């Protein structure tokens, strides 16, 4: 059943919203098992916390200024993550949905571009790579593989 009607309350984990809120858009970034045709077994996220928090707050402030939204929030995970784990979660709440979509997309795009967080992919073949960017990795394969080391199998 991919479409349902219900007379029961629909519940999510989002609360404490302004009563003008009509549309909320969330983005969840999850660890996937394939990246650029390589089988990923897990990931490691490392942040530069002082600058990451400064940039993250600046991005949310900019979203609140640039889009007609009531609230925006983002949280980013660090450390070792398994396949399916949530790496980043973002929400924007607005009176009308269009602004919430635009703000959420702006926030994830800008986090990826500016916030100093790095991702080391661990592959099933035991190698690891610090990823340079999403969806462009294999175009620069030689530069990417900054350091590979044996890491057991997984």
């Amino acid at each position: 059943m991919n479409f349902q009607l219900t007379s029961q309350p629909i519940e999510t984990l989002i609360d404490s919203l302004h009563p003008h809120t009509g549309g909320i858009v969330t983005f969840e970034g999850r660890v996937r098992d394939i990246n650029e045709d390589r089988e990923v077994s897990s990931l490691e996220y490392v942040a530069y916390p002082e600058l990451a928090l400064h940039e993250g707050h600046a991005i949310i402030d900019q979203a609140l200024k640039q889009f007609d939204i009531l609230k925006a929030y983002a949280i980013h995970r660090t450390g070792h993550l398994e396949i399916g784990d949530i790496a980043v979660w973002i929400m924007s709440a607005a009176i009308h949905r269009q602004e919430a979509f635009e703000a959420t997309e702006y926030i994830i795009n800008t986090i990826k571009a500016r916030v100093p967080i790095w991702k080391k992919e661990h592959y099933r073949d035991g190698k690891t790579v610090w990823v340079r960017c999403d969806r462009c990795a294999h175009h620069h394969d030689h530069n990417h593989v900054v350091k590979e080391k044996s890491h057991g199998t997984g």
Partner: protein
Amino acid sequence: MMTIHITYFAALRDATGQTEETLRTEVKTANALFHELTTKYHWPFSEADIQVAINDRYQPVEAALKEGDRVVFIPPVAGG
């Protein structure tokens, strides 16, 4: 000569083999320091790949350094 504190993250930490160091240098700018350290450690990045933070804020790569600055060279980020 001035004293600069440097912290390394991610690929630069691996390539440098340490988390942080304090060094004394003749260079005047962040990019000159980057080239000095690239020569020393054979970093696998060009200046175009790297951003610079001084005292926990992004700065232009040509920014002047002053005594006691905390510098971080930021390899390509991949959050989210």
